[in-house]
């Protein structure tokens, strides 16, 4: 969530004076710009607005718990190892020793759920980070340069949108060497066109606004205009898209590993745990319920956080939902 808290959310208020030494775009409120420049403490303001929405608070709480469990798993603070087998205590119901019971190899389900959660979150984070960076750069370039660059980017976007998302991820995962990174890449390719599409449109209108024309007339280079003047005005769109994409990415990763095309075993993954539990569900229901409920909680948390962030950053949409 560091991306959401450190990026400047545009506020519908009067612009601040430019910090010394750094050129700022001129006053935009009179020129009819969609958003005014960021205020000085963007992280604090964004968080305050997020906490004002009930969905955002619940989502933030769930995601915080998930991060805590992941950290506990990374640093080995849990009582059991996720891959340690104990044949004598196989398929035990949940108790004080094994919070979520044990699976058919006597492995602790809680430790495996924690490790699987870490795995899924990591893949989703890497995938979404990749698609956000590539998609935003491509979308901004397409909208800013128009012409051939726009035609090329839009063509690639159309082609990627021509596949049902899970099918494309599946096809890519099946041709790449299987490890957690290639799974992340496969998911990233699926979600990149979404970032292209949500950024390109606003950039097309931003580039015609006076402060961008002025910057061009002042002889600023294209990369300088894009990063200095255009990017700050579309951050809120990108941040909202990031939070929403995270929940989809978690679901896509789980579907892939359920189908046997995700992270290879023995690394635990929520999707493959649920797949393995299918045959055991009548004698050891906890092997499916535990990873299932945890995954639903994570996706619900990310969805609520996404709704909260959208309400906080998008003044027009507030109260409409």
């Amino acid at each position, binding site marked *: 969530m560091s991306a959401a808290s450190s990026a400047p959310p545009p506020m519908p208020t009067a612009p601040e004076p430019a910090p010394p030494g750094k050129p700022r775009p001129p006053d935009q409120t009179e020129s009819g710009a969609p958003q005014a420049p960021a205020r000085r403490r963007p992280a604090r303001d964004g968080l305050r607005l997020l906490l004002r929405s009930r969905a955002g608070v619940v989502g933030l709480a769930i995601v915080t718990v998930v991060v805590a469990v992941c950290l506990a798993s990374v640093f080995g603070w849990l009582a059991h190892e996720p891959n340690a087998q104990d044949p004598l205590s196989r398929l035990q119901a949940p108790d004080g020793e094994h919070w979520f019971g044990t699976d058919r190899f006597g492995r602790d389900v809680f430790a495996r759920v924690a490790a699987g959660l870490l795995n899924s979150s990591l893949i989703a984070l890497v995938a979404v980070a990749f698609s956000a960076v590539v998609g935003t750069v491509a979308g901004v370039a397409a909208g800013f340069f128009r012409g051939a660059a726009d035609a090329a980017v839009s063509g690639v976007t159309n082609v990627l949108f*021509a596949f049902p998302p899970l099918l494309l991820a599946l096809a890519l995962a099946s041709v790449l060497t299987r490890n957690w990174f290639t799974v992340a890449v496969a998911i990233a390719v699926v979600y990149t066109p979404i970032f292209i599409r949500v950024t390109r449109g606003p950039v097309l209108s931003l580039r015609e606004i006076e402060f961008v024309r002025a910057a061009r007339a002042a002889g600023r280079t294209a990369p300088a205009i894009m990063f200095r003047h255009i990017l700050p005005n579309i951050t809120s769109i990108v941040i909202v898209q990031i939070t929403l994409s995270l929940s989809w990415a978690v679901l896509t990763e789980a579907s892939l590993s359920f189908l046997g095309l995700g992270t290879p075993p023995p690394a635990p993954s929520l999707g493959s745990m*649920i797949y393995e539990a299918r045959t055991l569900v009548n004698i050891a229901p906890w092997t499916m319920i535990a990873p299932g409920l945890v995954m639903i909680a994570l996706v619900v948390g990310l969805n609520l956080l996404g709704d909260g962030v959208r309400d906080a950053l998008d003044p027009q949409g507030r109260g409409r939902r």
Partner: protein
Amino acid sequence: MLTRVLHSSITRRFVTALGTLFGVAVLVFAMLRAIPGDQVTAQFGIESGALTAAQRASLESYYGLDQPLFVQFFSWLGNVLTGNQGFSARSHMSVAELTALSLPVTIELAIITIVFSLLLGVPLGMLSASKPNSARDAFGQVIALAGLSIPAFLLGSSVMAWAASSWGENPNGQAFAQLAENPGLNLRQMILPAAVLAFGIAAPIMRTTRTAVLDVRSKDFIRTARAKGLAPRRIQFRHVLTNALVPITTMTGLQFGYLLGGAIVIEQVFSLPGIGRQVLVGIEQKEYAVVQSTILIIAVCFVLVNLLTDILYRVIDPRVRAL
């Protein structure tokens, strides 16, 4: 007349779709080239190491692997377009024959799913919109959030286990029955998977309905209808719902397209021999010709469904047609 046809938005949309399909073909071709090894190694396995250079060269020329890449691409594309999409050595059937069996299964599943999700999503969306920010709105929103957040494979696996253990009902344990051969068993095998898929698909339909109904209700003509003294029920169905149908249709078409490829997981859970399962089996058995052609077929269907939705949208909404 001709210029009007050439410049109409539908024609333009059609040309874009053709270009997209060409790009799809290039991508599918390139993806399969990314797999290490070629047709020769795939055919002979580790014994391909024992081939002499001359044998290998003659095999490569037989498969056309010595041709430049773009020649290989166009000869493959020509084959695909003329109905030769490859052959599955395992099932002794051509991909065209396999698809003729599997595509109807997926389409049937998609149609039943869409009917279920409309029956669930539209009333729920209207219920939510009837009183925004009330308890019934919250009820609708929670159901939609659950639909978006509960993965289909989890819901499918648990529903199937639950139906089998508490009712002894597990039609999907039997061999799949085609609709024409045994319609009763076929429908029993379709209902659970369609219901599970519909729960997820109903969520976006519910949200779209809610937004559209709220949007239409704030329009002037609704105020006029109310001022005329029309019955609220008549306004709700005759004026609000018919106008809200435009975005609902678009969303439904989009979801139908997703179902053609997105039902993979549910087809796997419920052992339905649909087109998604054909991709999975092809991947498992390393029959890449099957995978390649099937993915291409799904993408073509997806693009066509989206194109049709777009055209339908222009037909039912006169305001868009005018543009």
